[in-house]
């Protein structure tokens, strides 16, 4: 952690770890609620999706049969909240028979590049994610 955080005036790197399936438990939904509130604090925000957490980003979710609200469309709004770094672990996808094509098309508009539309999802290996995690100041695990 940087020494200049003492006065609280600098930006911290926040990582939200999403490890659980979107339904079955409430962790995924309540994690997203933290991310959306946290977006108002102007910190450097990243999300990671590992283990069953990768199911949170799959497209075509239909929860009609379980009587629970499908909250997956909310992920599409993250770009508007300047939440633009969604790391998805390749091994977790592979272990579950998923590929990047199974995931929602999530994008953000890059203000430093004439508002060009860019993908928010970054596929990373377990090793690469380890490096990303080591750079964080605050990790919240859900």
């Amino acid at each position, binding site marked *: 952690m940087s020494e200049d955080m003492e006065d609280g005036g600098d930006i911290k790197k926040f990582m939200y770890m999403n490890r659980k399936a979107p339904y079955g438990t409430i962790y995924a939904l309540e994690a997203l609620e933290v991310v959306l509130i946290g977006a108002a604090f102007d910190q450097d925000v990243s999300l990671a999706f590992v283990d069953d957490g990768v199911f949170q980003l799959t497209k075509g979710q239909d929860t009609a049969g379980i009587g629970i609200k499908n909250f997956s469309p909310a992920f599409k709004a993250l770009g508007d909240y300047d939440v633009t770094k969604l790391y998805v672990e390749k091994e977790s996808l592979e272990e579950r028979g998923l590929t990047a094509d199974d995931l929602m098309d999530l994008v953000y508009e890059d203000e430093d590049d004439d508002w060009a539309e860019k993908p928010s999802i970054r596929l990373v290996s377990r090793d690469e994610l380890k490096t990303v995690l080591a750079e964080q100041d605050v990790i919240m*695990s859900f």
Partner: protein
Amino acid sequence: MKFGVVVNEGPYTHQASDSAYQFTKEAIAQGHEIIRVFFYHDGVNNGTRLTVPPGDDRHIQNNWSELAKEHNLDMVVCIAAAQRRGILDENEAKRQGKDADNIAEGFRISGLGQLIEAGIQADRLVTFGD
């Protein structure tokens, strides 16, 4: 060092609240500062004053309330998570038209911003849960 503590599981079913309590108590004993204990997910259930465990068992909620009183701890229960699970203070009970409240002494109900703020202000944010 300044610690923020997050409790994500309810009492008794899960050891998270016990572990968080032991950690908080010991951190204070060793001279560290606990800037906030934040209760989220089922962790909000630690904040009801209506729990009645058997007499030969630890009283998790009372333990927290006493620790808060002794060390002036800031213990925050997430409002959104609390409302879902029926944890209300007097104001919320009135606002929601409920006939009772159940928040325990030393706990206060507030928003998720308090969790983010704890992450910003603490040197380390320590999470207890699954």
